[in-house]
């Protein structure tokens, strides 16, 4: 789950970090009123869960309530990576001496959390290695202020900046571990004239698999944004999510819609990627990506089959899985045929290929034969099955 900027700031403030205080507005009039209350130069920012807002024009500096109203009406009309902006924040435009970058994330190669400290904020990716310090730490011990001081000296930081940012990093790393974060980033951290360190912007992503133990912390932050979709889900994708949630047994979902004419019911995860690549290599145009696995119920498979076939322009459906371990091929076969029946489509004319070798394969084969569909076995590779699916889908 990604937090919006104002949610991230609220979460991190609970761990003792200081931030500029955003006022929120969902209309230009509310932005104007907020600006009147603030009474000084301000920054308006679109509240969307993406980075690089400045470059995309989603951050505006304003001096007067009227300017705030105008800027807000522009921001609220924006689409950001396909997400409509529904809320803007208004906060004081701070004067500061210097900017720093503070982040904590996972180093999947080292298999440890890693703290990052940068001299100079904003475009940290572009900065030379000597202006970015990194430090891997043990989650059992946590990150100590001493580690922060060592990182600071590597960057040439001194005096109150060194002391302050080391404490800041310690608190950020603590928040990271306590909140089951995937990424936490305060950028920039501004050092004000009186030496305070204040975060101007924050980005936080929390691990979905840890939500069961973060619910109280997250509930206090309001509605959260799903991580997986960079754009808002299409109607088809939303419906697929609903189908997958019918029952906790197995996966029949993770649908991503594409602009093609061949529906794909594919799985498990690795084979889905393999088959999708192969379909495209042979010139096929997939109508969707999806992942099926973990032995989903007949009902879920039937509902997903019907859904995928309902997309306008879809000609046929290809059912391809790796040699299955836990998923039952016969349950898949029954589900697919049930879905076809509900769609009013004839199996032999609608299924381009059915290839699910492995557990309960013979039962599946016999069942499909009754509907005039010849199942392919393991002697037909994933690649060969994908090629046949493309050939049999025909051209429009």
């Amino acid at each position, binding site marked *: 789950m990604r937090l919006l900027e104002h949610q991230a700031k609220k979460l991190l403030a609970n761990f003792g970090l200081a931030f500029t205080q955003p006022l929120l507005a969902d209309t230009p009039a509310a932005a104007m009123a907020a600006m009147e209350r603030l009474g000084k130069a301000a920054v308006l920012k679109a509240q969307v869960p993406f980075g690089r807002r400045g470059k995309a024009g989603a951050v505006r500096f304003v001096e007067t309530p009227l300017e705030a109203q105008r800027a807000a009406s522009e921001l609220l009309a924006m689409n950001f990576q396909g997400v409509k902006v529904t809320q803007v924040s208004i906060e004081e435009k701070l004067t500061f001496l210097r900017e720093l970058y503070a982040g904590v994330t996972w180093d999947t190669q080292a298999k440890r959390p890693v703290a990052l400290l940068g001299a100079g904020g904003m475009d940290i990716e572009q900065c030379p290695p000597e202006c970015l310090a990194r430090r891997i730490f043990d*989650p059992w011990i946590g990150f100590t202020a001493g580690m922060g001081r060592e990182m600071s000296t590597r960057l040439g930081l001194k005096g109150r900046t060194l002391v302050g940012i080391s404490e800041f990093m310690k608190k950020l790393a603590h928040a990271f571990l306590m909140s089951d974060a995937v990424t936490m980033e305060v950028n920039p951290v501004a050092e004000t004239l009186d030496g305070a360190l204040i975060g101007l912007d924050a980005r936080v992503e929390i691990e979905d698999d840890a939500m069961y133990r973060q619910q109280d912390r997250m509930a206090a932050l309001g509605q959260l944004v799903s991580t997986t979709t960079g754009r808002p889900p299409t109607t088809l994708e939303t419906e697929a999510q609903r189908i997958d949630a019918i029952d906790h047994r197995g996966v029949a979902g993770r649908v991503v819609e594409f602009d093609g004419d061949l529906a794909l019911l594919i799985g498990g995860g*690795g084979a889905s990627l393999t088959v999708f690549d192969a379909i495209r290599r042979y010139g096929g145009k997939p109508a969707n990506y999806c992942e099926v696995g973990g032995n989903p119920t007949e009902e879920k498979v039937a509902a997903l089959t019907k859904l995928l076939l309902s997309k306008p322009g879809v000609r046929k459906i290809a059912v391809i899985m790796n040699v299955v371990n836990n998923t039952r091929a016969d349950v898949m076969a029954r589900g697919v045929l049930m879905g076809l029946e509900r769609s009013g489509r004839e199996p032999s004319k609608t299924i381009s290929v059915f290839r699910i070798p492995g557990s309960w394969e013979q039962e599946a084969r016999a069942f499909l034969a009754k509907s005039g569909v010849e199942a392919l076995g393991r002697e037909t590779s994933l690649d060969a099955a994908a090629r046949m699916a493309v050939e049999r889908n025909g051209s429009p």
Partner: protein
Amino acid sequence: MILDSDRILVQGITGREASGMVEDALAYGSRIVAGVTPGKGGQQVHGVPVFDTVSEAMAASNATVSVISVPAVAVLDAALEAFAHGILFCLVMTERVPRLDTCKLLVIAERAGCTVIGPNTLGLIRPGIAKLGTIGGRLDNVRQSFRLGRVAVLSRSGGMTTEISSFLTNRGIGQSIAIGVGGDPIVGANFTELIKILENDPSTDAVVIYGEPGGAAEEQLAEHLKREPSRLRINAFLSGRFVDEIEGVRFGHAAVVVEGGRGSVRGKAAALREAGVFVADRFDDILEGLS
């Protein structure tokens, strides 16, 4: 080699998935000698005695390998209990383990000198000898998919472990071992650690690797092979090329700084090729140079 003579403990043995796994693994020849489920000590699962603690199970069985199949919330605790009692090889089947727990588990495993496979793995098999986990599913399918031979299969996807092995078996190429390394961003032993082990295994001549987008396991292996060339023939197949073309929606800089441009399938393929690995463009090409 793992499972040559290992005695196996199953943590969470009374669970539905674990008990089915135990039945199949026993029938395949795996030496499962004890199980643990707190509160169910004294029971039996397919003839295997169940204990309340790893301590009691170890006293009765002297296991060296543990398979963990407990709910995600209990994985860290179960693993620490195994490490504390001298388990040297641990396979974590459980899915959806928070990565903080995985990381904490691996820190202690390193200290205890224990090799960890997973989390989120279907397991591993040494064809004709033994298997751990649900890899291959029903026994008739296991026997049809895997055959003893000299090619090791290492895969980031459980399903593809069986698919690749079955594909090889179908074309007369047997496997010395097949391992699903686990599908999570952070897992225990990955390609590099496992290649180092296989380097010294006289029963393995070649390795087939299955990789996916994300993470840096493939790049890490490429870097290792450049430093220390391998005696093994290594073929790789990478799926998810289309993911490279989908414009990623970025969120912050931290991951980009840490991964340093790694993660794309194109980049992984290039790194592996540069390190002397044969990278198959089509799945069927993974046979190249194997016999």
